[in-house]
């Protein structure tokens, strides 16, 4: 199955309105699961919501949140406001997300799944120059010696607070699993060279906050689905799989899942990972190539006997000019699955 709610959302007469309407969004998510014959009701991938809700705590509007970035270290009162327990109202998108979960949770044959951006990825979206702080931290620069590093760590604290709040709300509204999306936890932000030299930034910035999140999910009896479509090295995949121990690990198309199976415990399902970001282009990704890759992937996963769900490398975005091409390839991918069953 693809992560396909955006495709179905754009069949609504007014997709933007449906995005903020819990009942409509719930129906979209239900239709998505039915369309691709899965009990897993994966929600719309909207990774902006936690940032909007976080910045609302310091009076930044939803409209301004997307372009708002911190450029210098936060004073104590701002940091306290961002990390505090007091609740500002959720934005319309978050309210709709939670209402949609209520809707799905009432349907007996669907498994309600929530979604949130991961703390590290959210931290990178709060900061004007996210890679610099990470790179400086990676070479051992202390927060006392660098405003970039200090701000990054402050953003990470605030981000973790926001993600936890989002996750708790979704569990309250019926989520039985949460898909944590950490696209920034990859080699674009975290240098393998620095890791080989002994840097602990992957542990400090990615694993520690996500391990705390996993503990919170475990305490609530909620499963973790972990998604990272970025470029990764083997130790990253192994850490996600063995230490976060998600029920499903969703990876991007740069990975060969049948090789990753060696790194992943047998009870962690691998999901993905066809290159759906290229589906818009018949030139770059003809349907024959989709069929070839899907067939190869299924055959290799069968050969290594690791549990696997064939799917997309990330959410499949609706591109109006290319919708027929995208849908044709999603259908082709699903047809391969049906043939192989």
């Amino acid at each position: 199955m693809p992560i396909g709610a955006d495709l179905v959302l754009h069949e609504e007469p007014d997709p933007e309105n449906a995005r903020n309407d819990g009942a409509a969004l719930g129906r979209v998510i239900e239709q998505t699961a039915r369309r691709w014959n899965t009990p897993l009701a994966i929600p719309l991938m909207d990774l902006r919501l936690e940032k909007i809700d976080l910045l609302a705590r310091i009076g930044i509007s939803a409209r301004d949140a997307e372009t708002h970035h911190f450029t210098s270290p936060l004073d104590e009162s701002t940091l306290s406001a961002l990390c505090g327990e007091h609740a500002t109202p959720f934005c319309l998108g978050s309210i709709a997300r939670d209402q949609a979960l209520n809707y799905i949770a009432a349907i007996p044959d669907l498994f309600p799944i929530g979604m949130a951006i991961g703390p590290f990825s959210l931290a990178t979206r709060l900061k004007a120059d996210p890679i610099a702080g990470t790179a400086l931290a990676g070479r051992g620069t202390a927060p006392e010696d660098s405003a970039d590093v200090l701000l990054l760590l402050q953003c990470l604290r605030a981000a973790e607070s926001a993600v936890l709040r989002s996750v708790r709300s979704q569990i309250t509204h019926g989520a039985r699993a949460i898909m944590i999306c950490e696209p920034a936890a990859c080699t674009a932000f975290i240098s393998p060279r620095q890791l080989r030299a002994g840097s602990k930034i992957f542990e400090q910035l990615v694993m520690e906050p996500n391990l705390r999140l996993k503990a919170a999910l475990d305490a609530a009896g909620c499963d973790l689905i972990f998604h990272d479509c970025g470029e990764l090295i083997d130790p990253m995949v192994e850490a996600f799989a063995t230490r976060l121990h998600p029920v499903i690990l969703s990876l991007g198309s740069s990975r060969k899942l049948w090789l990753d199976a060696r790194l992943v415990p047998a009870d962690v399902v691998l999901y993905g990972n066809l290159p759906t970001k290229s589906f818009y282009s018949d030139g770059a990704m003809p349907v024959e190539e989709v069929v070839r890759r899907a067939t190869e992937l299924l055959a290799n996963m069968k050969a290594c006997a690791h549990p696997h769900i064939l799917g997309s490398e990330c959410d499949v975005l609706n591109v109006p000019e290319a919708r027929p091409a995208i849908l044709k390839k999603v259908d082709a991918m699903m047809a391969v699955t049906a043939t192989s069953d």
Partner: protein
Amino acid sequence: MAQSKDLYDAILNGDAKKARATTEAALAAGVPPMELIQESMVSAMDEVGRLFEAEEYFVPELLLSARAMKSSLDLLKPLLSASGQKMSARVVIGTVKGDLHDIGKNIVASMLEGGGFEVIDLGTDVSPESFVAAVKERNPQFVCMSALLTVTMPSMKTTIDALKTAGLRTQVKVLVGGAPVTTQYAKEIGADGFSENANGAVSLVKNLLAGEAA
């Protein structure tokens, strides 16, 4: 020359403070700004690019080196302007309309500056009209467009069409990039080139310039 080697090393090692300090020392010692650019900066960034292609450097190293180079270049730019000296080519760069992603675009901009080019960064969410206006006003040789989402990529074609309508298309080479962009897509929309990373973008600009000079 010692100062040139120190600056080269500072940029290669991504040490912005040292890059600035060695630039100040070099200028105080009378080293011409363009010599520092050509002998230290461009060669250091060339080596950074080579290390990136060899997968010994990654995006974080690229960025730290670009920052170090920029900290030096910020000292040199006013001196170059005052003396009327120009960089080898002018590039207008931006993320297309509807797209707010700028990390990749920023890295490309920094690498292009390190490669000795003058860069005019239009930022993000840049409309076709803004690209056209920048070409009219600044007369660049290159327009570089970035998009990170498949839904915003169509703005690249819209911008190319706008350049044609304005009678400016043949004046510039248009290069495109970003995670979902492909060589095939670049050809389909009539771009002159595509690069899948910042280092490739610099090489592409240099090759196209060399092709024009030949």
